[in-house]
């Protein structure tokens, strides 16, 4: 065998169709999967937190252009996707005093608590700032006074799909909270909302833009005792 023919035999040229095919198949499968989830509103483009029921606590929340309505929310229950009613709270702009989110996860039959917290420890500042935020809850409690306060023009009884929160170029975005259309879907619209010492049960959290979020901490702890419910409210 000559040197040239030996080199041709060891150096492979051209496309590796077997490998490329495997990668392409995985890519196409992922694209189809993501497309399907997006089409079912399971996965929105900006979802940061969604799935199993989670605990949330916030020291204080001030939102401008606040909307509250009932929606059909897709969630994961025991690993299966299901749809159920949820109370969706949305705001064009959001300022938070501290944040704690926790969720129970089971890996190989062992329970873990994943907890995300943020804040500067100062109850007089609203240090976390975000735009276009929505969260799905089944209950939310505002302790103390103010508790849950609404300001500006407050409308109660409007349809969920007519709520006005975010806008594009000065024009209100249609149905920003993704409420079902038609009558029978109760909504509250308010220029400003101020909630204090919030604790709630949450199914999803979406935010388009987080401008500031200091003091982020993430912990994964065996068991279920490290949830936000068991901790003092974060500031």
């Amino acid at each position, binding site marked *: 065998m000559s040197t040239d023919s030996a080199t041709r*035999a060891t150096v*492979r*040229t*051209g*496309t590796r*169709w077997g490998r490329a095919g495997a990668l392409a198949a995985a890519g*196409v499968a992922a*694209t189809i999967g993501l*497309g399907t989830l*997006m*089409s079912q509103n399971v996965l929105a483009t900006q979802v940061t937190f969604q799935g199993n029921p989670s605990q949330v606590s916030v020291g204080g929340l*001030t939102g401008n252009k606040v909307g*509250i309505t*009932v929606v*059909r929310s897709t969630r994961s229950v025991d690993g299966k996707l299901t749809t159920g*009613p*949820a*109370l969706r709270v949305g705001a064009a702009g959001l300022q938070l005093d501290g944040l704690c989110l926790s969720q129970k996860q089971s890996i190989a039959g062992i329970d873990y608590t994943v907890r995300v917290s943020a804040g500067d420890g100062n109850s007089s500042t609203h240090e976390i700032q975000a735009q276009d935020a929505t969260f799905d*809850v*089944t*209950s*939310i*409690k*505002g*302790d*103390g*006074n*103010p*508790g*849950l*306060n*609404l*300001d*500006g*023009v*407050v*409308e*109660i*009884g*409007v*349809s*969920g*799909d*007519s709520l006005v929160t975010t806008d594009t170029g000065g024009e209100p975005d*249609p*149905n920003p909270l*993704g409420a*079902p*259309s*038609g*009558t*029978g*879907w*109760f*909504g509250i619209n*308010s*220029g*400003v909302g*101020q909630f204090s010492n919030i604790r709630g049960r949450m199914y999803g959290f979406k935010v388009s833009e987080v401008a500031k979020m200091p003091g982020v901490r993430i912990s994964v702890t065996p068991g279920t005792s490290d949830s936000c419910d068991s901790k003092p409210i974060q500031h």
Partner: protein
Amino acid sequence: MSTYQPSRRMQSLTVIVAVLLFVVTWLALATQTSASAASAPCGPGDANRAALKTVHGERALRPCLSKVNLKLSIPQDGLRSRFNVKEIRRAGQETVKFADGSTEKLWHLSFASFKVLDGATIRTTDNNDAQVSITPDKEASFGGAADSGKPIYTDVWVSAATFRINLLLIGCLVPIDVSNPLLALVTVANSAIPNAITLGGCAIDMDIRYLVSYSDDPSSAGNYPVRLPNTTLSLS
């Protein structure tokens, strides 16, 4: 060792199929997004919005109404006052349009402040899928006064309402229906008094279709026409 080399035609075909797949996926997602964004909340051209005016200042309102009933109930507990209402006015009955184009005759009431002292249940009765509850542990207020001292008025459109108000000789003994001429008398009395009186009440049942509270000077300091201290908002 042999290496599979596809023909130029096969390579071209692969590229064309990939481009077609991308275009079809993009079109499918784009069509879905525009379809969900295109639907108007209140019928074609938003024609089903209600046309309402507030009692004070005749502020024009064009809400798209859900037709969901929000029931505010405070049961009687002896002759104890369980709510206060200031400057209550009955503007009359008005035909109000809902998001689906249907209409209903509703009573239009207005007040400068409505303060629940205790015992209130505020809950939707006919929302689709689940009911919304607003549960204050004790107090809640609608309306009130801004920082400037100006009243923040609240208007409600109700399909039915019954009050037990501490009024004249009847006290809380007799329920007054929203249609009762006695309520019109209270309205006249309120209008005639410069600093309108605050009435105490023992019980109330109100089926609210729409409530609007309007502060002309919203501020982060908080004029807050709706105040719900120690309150749970829940779905059940």
